Every structure is written in C-alpha cells, then in structure tokens.
C-alpha cells in the first residue's frame, strides 16, 4: 500500500514534480528523508497499525499524514528551516469502542520513535483524576497527573466532563486552565490527547476556545461495519487461542447485526464482551460434560450454541 510517508520519501532529494521541491535550497543541503524514516523506526509502527487494527481507514490515513508531517518537520529542522515546534496535541472523537485508546497508545510509540517524546508512555485519565473535591484540591491533583505524563502522552477520556457549564463553581475550569498552561509552555515535555463523543467534544471546544486553538490535529473515528466487527472478533479470539466452528461463524455474523440494533452498542468493546460471555458458556458446556475426555480441539472451539445462547438472539425473536 502506498502511503503519504512513502510518497514523500520519493519527493526528497529535490525531485521535479513534488511541491516540496519548490523550497529553494542549494543541492548540498539535501537531507535523506528515507534515512530519517528508517532511523526513527516508525515504518514498523505504522505497518503494525495497519496490520493489527481492522478498518479505521480514515484514521490510519490521518496518522500517516501526521507522521509524514513530523518527519518532514524534522528534515526541515536539519537543514535549518525553522518552523517552530509543531503542535502535537490531538483530539480523537468517535463512539465508544472505536479504538481511540488503542490508537493513542500507538501514537505515543510513534512520537517516541520520531523523537518528539522522550519516553513514549501513555497516562490515561478521566475527570476524576484531574478535578478535586474541594477548594485547593484541583491544582495539585492536576499537576501531579501532568508530571506523571511528562515525557509521554496524557490521554484524557471524555474530556468534555471537565467543563460543567451548569455549575459555575465547578472546579473543572481550574483543571482546564492548568492544562492549557502546560500544553502551551511545555510542548516538548508532553502531548495531550483529548477523546470523546464528537458532538459533545465540539460543544466543549465551543465553550473553551483556548483549548480548541491549542489542538493541532482532530481525528474522527468512524463506527465499524459488520464485516470489520467480525474481523475484530476473529482477531481477538485468535489472540486468546480460541476458534469458531463453521456454524459459530454464522452465528457470530448474525449476532453482530442484531447487537448493533440494540442500545449501548460499543463497537469493538461490545464484541469483546460478547466473546467473554461466549467463553463462559463454552467453559460451562465443557464442565457439564466433564465425564468425557476433552480433546485439544474441544477446548479451543467455540460452538454455535455458545453464541446463540446470548440474550441478543432471545430479544430479537420477540415482537417489537
């Protein structure tokens, strides 16, 4: 697959047809973008992203764009074309279970590989970890979290809960102000990624324009379609050393379609929960037949009945 990064690799040293070549630089000042790309080890991280995450095509494209941009910034820096440190704070929007946390972890590894983060760890927090319960409690709490995240990524899940317009004495505002200050002044030390539902995130940015203007990259995570969810489930099972019998595969296909129509559908997370319950039923079934010796195959294979016992099928049969 040809990626943005690969395309740009071909464009430097100065080619004739690429827009990057319009930068007037003496030929002696060429920089080997390809070597930079190889040294940073991000090729492997990007490939793993493609391989291990199902679907998410727009997200992967954005990440490749960001990676290419950062790599080119590095190259520009090396020939002395200063642009100032690129803004790295990001906002991931999408429904639950669309892979925001997973991608944030990969992003941390990516930024670490390119030398934009010194450690590349991920600290995942929510409102509770940042906002205190009484006056004077919020600032130390927020600062402590920020210090733990330094050198890595601070991932704030459901960031819009920080701002509660209905309560003017809410301490969330204080946490936001400290966050903004650090996001602005210590851009080399940490990257902040905000995550949450798209519409609520937009409302949050409307009421906190300071936050919005400090976030360079907005990435939207689409919902998975049925085939992608099935592929995710298959990947999860594979990593847990289970497999589906042929009839169980059909059952799971049906399950995905039915589950989507039900409330509290959380994409990949719903699939994980469904598989966990199927594994429970699988274990129960084997336990009830414990007199017969078990083959390796029986221990590994999830049958259709393990999936069809789900209440998703039961309620689907009922008249609406």
């Amino acid at each position, binding site marked *: 697959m040809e990626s943005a990064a690969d395309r740009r690799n071909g464009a430097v040293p100065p080619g004739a047809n690429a827009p990057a070549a319009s930068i007037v630089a003496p030929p002696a000042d060429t920089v080997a973008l390809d070597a930079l790309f190889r040294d940073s080890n991000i090729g492997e991280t990007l490939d793993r992203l493609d391989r291990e995450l199902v679907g998410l095509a727009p997200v992967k494209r954005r990440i490749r764009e960001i990676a290419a941009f950062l790599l080119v910034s590095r190259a520009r820096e090396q020939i002395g074309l200063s642009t100032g440190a690129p803004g790295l704070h990001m906002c991931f929007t999408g429904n639950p279970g669309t892979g925001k946390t997973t991608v944030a972890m990969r992003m941390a590894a990516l930024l670490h590989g390119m030398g934009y983060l*010194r*450690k590349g*760890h991920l600290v995942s927090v929510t409102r509770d970890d940042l906002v205190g319960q009484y006056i004077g409690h919020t600032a*130390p709490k927020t*600062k402590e979290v*920020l*210090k*733990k995240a*330094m*050198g*890595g990524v601070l991932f704030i899940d459901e960031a819009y809960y920080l701002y509660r317009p209905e309560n003017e004495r809410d301490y969330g505002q204080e946490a936001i102000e400290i966050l903004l200050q650090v996001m602005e002044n*210590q851009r080399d*030390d*940490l990257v902040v990624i905000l995550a949450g539902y798209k519409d609520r995130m937009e409302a949050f940015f409307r009421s906190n324009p300071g936050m919005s203007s400090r976030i360079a990259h907005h990435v939207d995570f689409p919902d998975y379609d049925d085939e992608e969810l099935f592929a995710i489930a298959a990947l999860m099972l594979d990593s847990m050393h289970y497999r589906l019998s042929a009839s169980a595969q059909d059952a799971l296909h049906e399950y995905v379609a039915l589950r989507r129509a039900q409330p509290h559908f959380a994409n990949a997370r719903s699939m994980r929960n469904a598989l966990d319950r199927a594994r429970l039923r699988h274990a129960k079934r084997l336990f009830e037949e414990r007199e017969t010796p078990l083959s390796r195959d029986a221990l590994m294979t999830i049958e259709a009945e393990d999936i069809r016992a789900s209440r998703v099928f039961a309620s689907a049969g009922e008249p609406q």
Partner: protein
Amino acid sequence: MRITQGTFSFLPDLTDEEIRAQIEYALSQGWACAVEYTDDPHPRNTFWEMWGPPLFDLKDAAGVLVEVVACRAAQPESYVKVTAFDSTLGFETTRLSFIVQRPPAEAGFALDRIEGAGRSQRYAMRRKDADGKRR
C-alpha cells in the same frame, strides 16, 4: 563558606542539564524524587522542609525539574536539594541527594569551644553570617 553535603557537592554547581541527567538516572533506577529546601544547612539538620509531597510514579525528569524551578523561584535565599528515595526492600532509604541551589551569600560556621564538666573541652558548630558575624 561553601557548604559541602550530599553527592557532587565538591564539584562546581550542577547545570540544569546535569541535574536533569541525574534525575533521569534516579528515575531509571526506580527511585522516587523529592525536592527539599532549608535556610539552615547545618550538617546535623537532617530535616529540610519538603517542597510538596515526594514525586512518585514519574517517567521523565521534566516533572521533577518543574518542582525544582518552582521551589527556586519561591525560595531564592534557601538551599534546595533533590533527594531520590529507593523503596526496594533492604534499602528503603535515600540513595542519592544533591544540592540544586545555594543562596547568593552562603553562611559560614564557627567552631565554639565549650567548657564541660570538670576540665573537659567540648566543641560546637555555630552558624555565622556571610560577613563573619556570629548569630
């Protein structure tokens, strides 16, 4: 008089980059750093004021340096040190401690002779101000 206590105190003062490298080393060993300050650098004064709680679970020196900078700004006339605490079983103590700020004019110490019981002589260290005046 130049106070020499803690690690590196016979060397020239550490630069911020050197301080960062030392903190990185401490964190890489799994030690928790803390910032402390005092206006009384007497060698027997082991209880320096704590600048906030110890910093646990940090991954990067930047978090400690933030506190060092804040402490220096708030206490420009004090000694400031960074200590690194090792919580592993068998140590459970400070493994590294070094000064990161000295006041512009350092105090000195004078040796006092004290008459003890009988004809015995005892000695005590007494703090002197920078101009040599006894306090």
